[in-house]
């Protein structure tokens, strides 16, 4: 294995082409500082207004070429809710960070009743979860032509466009039916799915004529995928996304291998024809296996199993470089872990997910207010904060700097120790704020209680393992009985 993923760029190399005026318009004090940010992919070229002037055209183009990701960024949708896919600089997350989280589109088809389409889109919008102060949600709608009827497909596409302003994917391999629907929504800039070996010429006409990005579908045939990309580029189609085929069952291994080969070819071998976003279709888990009649019970059980497998495929595809997923299931238990994992793998590994340590006050604390301890891992902190606030508890919360680790990991990794708690307690000045000397520590840090008592002289109360039980804990254990020892 050779080379790292991101083109290794030195800030000096970039600096050569910058205006070197230190004008500060980009928000950095010097051009060198801006060059460093560019090298780390933390700033975009467009943030330097000077570079956009005609006299810097050549420098700009040179820098653009130096800095562009090996996997192009493709945008579909319009207005505020656009979907950006691809734009990947690296194959492995630790080589830099992953940009543009996998877009998840939910499919509807034109044989569904309007009420069913409405129901699905409503539910899609409702699947929203607040995690570390951020909203996790699904991103797009894929409309499929199942009827084979141009007017029906058009009606379904129009209905969806009216129901939601989310980005759209139009799925239909027949160019005439596609165009019939596209004329009504082309301004929404949908992703057209898809060009194949049989329809590429007509699809290329649609993509260039209506200025929409185009998916390329070549199941199990990467050579064909490359051929199609080369041909479509020659035809004038710039924005492409690649679907090498998502195979259900035993073939899924080939799917993941195709994704790996394509991404490696683009990121490590400089294969420009494969440097496009990848599309995975976990919805194929729902393809009917046909055959025997089933009882209602069996049908229900089968639905759960299909959703279960779809979730497994989706999470593996996200992990193996998928930039866009087309899914069928709208079950919360399917989508929640997927959205969480997507959020996780797309966080920047260069930045710890941490909050400022120190003492926080909630409600109207007084001198008999309980003092609780937690860590500065953002998720731990926000979870505890949310539980305290929603129960309207008055308290002090001592946030210990565990270098962004959760309680469980911090105790195991000695990032939350009795010494650290004692130091944090002292620095916080909470000793002057409360009269009592009771410290409530997380249940998962129970083993530190003896040592904390020795070091601080405070009496330790071991709190619950999960902060959702804090209100109950306090109502039972606070104020503490004086002569407990």
């Amino acid at each position, binding site marked *: 294995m050779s080379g790292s993923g991101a083109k290794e760029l030195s800030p000096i190399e970039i600096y050569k082409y910058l205006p070197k005026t230190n004008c500060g318009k980009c928000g950095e004090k010097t051009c060198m500082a801006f060059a460093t940010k560019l090298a780390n992919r933390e700033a975009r070229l467009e943030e330097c207004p000077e570079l956009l002037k005609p006299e810097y055209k050549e420098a700009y183009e040179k820098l653009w070429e130096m800095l562009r990701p090996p996997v192009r960024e493709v945008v579909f949708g319009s207005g505020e809710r656009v979907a950006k896919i691809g734009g990947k600089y690296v194959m492995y997350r630790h080589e830099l960070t992953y940009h543009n989280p996998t877009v998840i589109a939910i499919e509807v088809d034109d044989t569904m009743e309007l009420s069913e389409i409405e129901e699905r889109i409503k539910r899609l919008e409702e699947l929203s979860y607040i995690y570390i102060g951020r909203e996790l949600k699904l991103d797009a709608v894929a409309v499929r032509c199942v009827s084979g009827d141009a007017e029906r497909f058009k009606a379904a596409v129009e209905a969806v466009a009216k129901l939601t302003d989310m980005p759209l994917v139009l799925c239909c391999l027949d160019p005439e039916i596609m165009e019939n629907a596209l004329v009504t929504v082309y301004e929404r800039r949908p992703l057209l799915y898809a060009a194949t070996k049989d329809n590429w010429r007509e699809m290329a006409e649609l993509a260039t004529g209506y200025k929409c990005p185009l998916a390329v579908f070549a199941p199990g045939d990467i*050579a064909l995928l490359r051929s199609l990309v080369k041909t479509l580029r020659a035809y004038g189609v710039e924005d492409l996304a690649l679907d090498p085929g998502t195979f259900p069952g035993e073939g899924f291994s080939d799917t993941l291998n195709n994704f790996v080969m394509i991404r490696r070819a683009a990121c490590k071998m400089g294969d420009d024809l494969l440097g496009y976003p990848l599309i995975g279709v976990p919805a194929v888990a729902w393809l009917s296996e046909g055959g025997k009649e*089933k009882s209602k019970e069996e049908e229900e059980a089968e639905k759960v199993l299909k959703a279960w497998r779809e979730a497994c495929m989706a999470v593996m595809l996200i992990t193996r470089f998928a930039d866009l997923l087309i899914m069928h299931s709208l079950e919360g238990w399917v989508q*929640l872990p997927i959205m969480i994992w997507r959020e996780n793998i797309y966080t920047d590994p260069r930045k710890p997910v941490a909050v400022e340590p120190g003492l926080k006050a909630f409600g109207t604390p007084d001198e008999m207010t309980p003092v609780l301890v937690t860590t500065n891992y953002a998720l731990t902190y926000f979870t505890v904060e949310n539980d305290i606030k929603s129960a309207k508890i008055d308290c002090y919360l001592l946030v210990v700097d565990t270098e962004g680790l959760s309680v469980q990991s911090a105790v195991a990794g000695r990032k939350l120790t009795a010494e650290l708690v004692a130091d944090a307690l002292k620095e916080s000045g909470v000793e002057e704020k409360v009269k009592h000397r009771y410290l409530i520590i997380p249940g998962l840090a129970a083993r530190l209680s003896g040592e904390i008592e020795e070091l601080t002289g405070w009496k330790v109360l071991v709190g619950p393992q999960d902060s959702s039980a804090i209100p109950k804990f306090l109502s039972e254990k606070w104020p503490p009985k004086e002569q407990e020892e």
Partner: protein
Amino acid sequence: MPEEKRKPEEGESVEGFLASFLPDLLKLLAKYEEIELEDVELHAKKLAFELLPVIPAAPPVPAAPPVAKPTELLREGFEPPVMTYPGRVEEVKIGATRSEGGSRGKTYVIGGEMNPPYYIFERPPPHRPIISMDVFDTKVPLPRAVKMHIKDVIDDPGEWAKRNVEKFGADMIVVHLLSMDPLIEDKAPKDALKTIEEVLQAVDVPVVVGGCGDPEKDAEAFKIASDMFSGERLIMSSVTLDMADKGVLDETAKAIAQHGHIALAFTPIDLNLARELNRKLYGHVARDSIIMDLTSAALGYGSEYSYTIMERARLAALMGDKELQHPIMACSANTWAAREAWIKEAEIGEIWGPRELRGPMYETVAALVYLLAGADWLMVEHPATTRTLKEFIDILMKKGAAKPETIAGWVSAKLG
């Protein structure tokens, strides 16, 4: 035509599994759908006010054709981007049969990888990853979705182990001797170890001696266990840098090595510490008797750190970093610490579904992610996760099984 009701096939598929082990499933689903319908009505009213007219004025005139439009496909080839790697992961043999000096009917070899996980286009992994399931020697709070499958054997470690192996398909049993914890029962290690004996009698798969987290007591337990079960090739879970700080690592490592067992080396999401601990072990324990636990966070609670550290460790090993060339253990069971996995629907919101499905799905997602990061051994809590992992491991070992014609028409197929 009414068909004979299909019997779920034991050990066959997720389908068989879920049908037989989630008896409440259909009831829960029925409830779930009612709620969905209520919400829909509400929303239909709301929707009427939110319709967004987006009909464009007129279609654009297609752009003028470029100069030289291709008229037929420009043929390109593709060479699989195969790479070579200077390093190789050690193979570790787990468990010993009677003829090898132990008493196990089943043993495994893990590790030995020469390329990244499941890059089958280069070569398949030399061994399948294995799946262990847990037994506790004390009452521990278990999530409802897990407990419902084992509540009748929860006070009998031997029977619990049997259930894990025979019914759920576990390859190995981890016995957590939490009773030794000074904060729980503070049991003497030699007394606690009777449970290991019991489990070794009950099942014929390899067994892991799980400590209580107190470095001194665990060290003591591992030393005694090493001698007591000499030759079994048990895994001691886990040896830590804390043991080194307390001055008990060396003698523990010596005992483990002397009696032919395996050390699971735990470090907290830090490759430098992992290397440091391995270096300390090399003086006593053979390279083929070390497995690494690089910390497995719960899904959503730091799982990206764990994923990345495992991936980095494996890639570094393949690039020739000898101090990281050991198989990796990952623990999806930890995901039950994530509240989203166990919290009631009523509290998290009905839309997120019954915890009987949400919980095992959560653990399964964590397990699959760690599998792709390179885990050679997964510690699992829920039987549905075990069953799903087995199915997907089978799939991941395959090459050339895709049938393009099955999905060529997915765009126009009715799903569901």
